[in-house]
């Protein structure tokens, strides 16, 4: 099982498609407890990533992810630009210039991405952010050894992200604009955790569709 630049290209294209489809839903969630632009911003950013993908020379998964991260940082703004940008940048940096990435290397890169997001956003568990969906997803992959099929491991990660997203819905947000609402944010699903759950669902579908 190796992961190639081609896999990452398909992953980014599929994520752009899924974000475009969920644009209204992400914006609706953000209108309730944020400023109502999460879907708009993510869609603008992923469309910008799609614009540069054909021009990126294609043999290294890490290079592709780094370029995608830089593009997000340069086009999205807001909080999601630096956060998703940092996620892809750190993943890309962790993968270095390997042309064929092992499963373990890929999971380690996801962990590096998660750590980058937490550091950039200064987010702790239960702050009701992306981190609360991303952490259980990465942990699910880390705990799935090679005896577990890759598609099965990715399915567990996608499920864990959804569970993590839903687990923090009743909580009061402690980061970002939702934190201004105090108790009023409790009971609302977090838009950032939602787009993160979408990212892990996309990762699953990237590999399952191939098989």
């Amino acid at each position: 099982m190796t992961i190639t630049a081609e896999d990452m290209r398909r992953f980014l294209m599929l994520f752009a498609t899924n974000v475009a489809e969920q644009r209204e839903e992400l914006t609706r969630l953000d209108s309730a407890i944020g400023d109502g632009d999460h879907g708009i911003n993510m869609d603008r950013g992923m469309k910008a990533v799609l614009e540069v993908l054909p021009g990126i020379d294609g043999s290294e998964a890490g290079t592709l992810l780094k370029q995608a991260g830089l593009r997000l940082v340069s086009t999205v703004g807001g909080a999601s630009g630096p956060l998703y940008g940092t996620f892809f940048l750190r993943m890309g940096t962790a993968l270095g210039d390997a042309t064929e990435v092992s499963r373990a290397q890929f999971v380690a890169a996801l962990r590096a991405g998660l750590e980058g997001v937490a550091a950039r956003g200064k987010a702790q568990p239960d702050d009701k952010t992306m981190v609360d969906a991303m952490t259980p997803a990465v942990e699910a992959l880390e705990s799935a050894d090679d005896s577990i099929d890759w598609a099965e491991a990715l399915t567990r990660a996608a499920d864990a992200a959804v569970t993590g997203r839903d687990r923090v819905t009743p909580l009061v947000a402690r980061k970002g604009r939702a934190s201004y609402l105090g108790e009023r944010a409790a009971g609302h699903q977090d838009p950032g955790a939602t787009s993160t759950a979408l990212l892990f669902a996309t990762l699953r579908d990237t590999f399952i569709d191939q098989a």
Partner: protein
Amino acid sequence: MKKLINDPERAVDEALAGMVAAHGDLIRVEEPNIVVRRDAPRQGKVGIISGGGSGHEPMHGGFVGLGMLDAACPGAVFTSPVPDQMIAATKAVDGGAGVLHIVKNYTGDVMNFEMAAEMAQTDSIEVSSVLIADDVAVQDSLYTAGRRGVGGTVLAEKIAGAAAEEGADLATVTRICQKVQDNVRSMGMALTSCTVPAAGKPTFEIGDDEMEIGVGIHGEPGRRRAKLAPADEIVQLLVDPILEEGLFDSGDEAFLFVNGLGGTPLLELYIVYRKVAEMLDSRGVRVTRNLVGSYITSLDMAGTSITLLKLDDELTRLWDAPVHTPALRWGM
């Protein structure tokens, strides 16, 4: 959505083009979408840049010019600008004396300015930054993103800009900007939501007999929803939390800034001003400088914010200093 907009995707770009057409004697617009003082960089002068989402006009682009900002970085509507803009703006205004970044305390703005500082650290430009966080509606605690930067930002940009214009060094300009931040408090309320062009519908629903107390400037809901009340009662709901901060004592001099959020007529702002002045007068606080109008807005939101700054001789003198920008002009 009934708007004077051709295409929501082009709204910010077309507004910037209009600003240059109207105020080309004061500003220029450069890639990647930054508003720069026409004669920047000025050798030996500290540069001051700020930035934030669009939709708050005239802030920040309308404050670029003599005696205020050297550059502004406008993001998409209500979305912080990107690091590329802040890096380009910093370089465009550096006259060898360093550059001050005035950052409103929002998660996105702070992260993008931080990334800009990290990405530009190989450059030999000295950069300092001041975080504006004056909104008393937000509890400043470990459990929030901290107080938002709102009306105090306008006063900080004018006063720090005056200090830079008269030749103060970076440390002094930074100290003065921080002094404004330490002595300014604001609170706002909304009668209606606002409509983000790309979304095409109001950000939140609100009844004809309701208001939001403690709103920010992005259509994010306030701390609570309340039944609509007469203007004087609303003013008390805004001014009391500011005064409870304990910043103003009898005998103090204050700057009173009554701001419209974009959809409120000046007639109503003066009704608000009248009541705030009365409340301050009864406590022995003297309003010696003021600003009334829509200077930090939330698109078409109806509502107001009240900002109080404790003045001393230095801040008063710098407020009075000449300024020539698209939105503020006096003394020349």
